């Protein structure tokens, strides 16, 4: 299993980094930050299941 994992992820090298001025980040951390930003945007943009139905029901009760 460990042989298989090492075939997929070769970790036998120094970490790859992103350097910009004083900012020094590993690529792994940059990927995680990017994923967080994507998830944040999707959470705002994607409709929540049943949200429209609940809002319509609430408006129906109010009228």
């Amino acid at each position, binding site marked *: 299993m460990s042989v298989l994992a090492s075939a997929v992820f070769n970790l036998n090298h120094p970490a790859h980094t992103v350097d910009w001025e004083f900012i020094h980040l590993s690529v792994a951390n940059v990927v*995680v930050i990017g*994923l*967080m930003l994507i*998830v*944040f945007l*999707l*959470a*705002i943009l*994607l409709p*929540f299941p*049943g*949200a429209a139905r*609940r*809002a319509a029901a*609430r408006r129906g009760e109010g009228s």
Partner: protein
Amino acid sequence: MSAASPPTAPSSKSWTVRTRERVVEALPPEKLLPDGQPTYVASWIYVFGVASIAALIVIVASGSILALKGPAWWHYTGVGHFFNSIHLWGVELFFFVMVVHLWGKFWMAAWRGGRARVWITGAITFLVAVPTALPGYVSQQNFDAQWIATQAKDGINAVGVGAFFNVTNFGQMYSWHVLLLPVAVVLLVGAHVLLVRRHGVVPPFTIDDRKAALASSSAAAASPAPPDGSSSPPTSTGTRS
């Protein structure tokens, strides 16, 4: 003793009665355990708070098993590796969803409407969770732990807390990681959740309120000043949402 005798009235001097009355007044049962939430809560951005709590439960449960079984188990057995990984990835997920939760609440200005303490307890929880994780990495009992400890010691010493937060001292780091800091995180999360229950989930900004506020301030700026030069009384800028 007669079964029909009325119960004695509780003394108002009793600290238990005073505490109970204050607790029920602050958090009546229908607020503590509500059966519904406002319509605006039906959004994915409101999911990340409870996702953080779910991850925290997984972390505490898997961490308790690791603490009971010990380093030889988590390093040299298949099940130990599994729970070690569950604990690690639970932490990764905890920080991931907590940061998204923090971003969402920051851009909602979640401290509005008397919710300052809700925001503050959440922010402090994040700040305490970071040093809760660090002694976990240095308590692994392997070369990775030694590397992280020797890398972290200079930073810890530079901020002046190395005397009582010595990252090269396994016993001390293990105590911080499995007891002192997790208790602080759980208490802060508990306070945070109770405050959310008390004040309710922050509503989204409403565009109509912002339009009314802008129209009101524009009208006030356009109105001519009184002839005697005195300033007019301040006008309302609309409901702060």
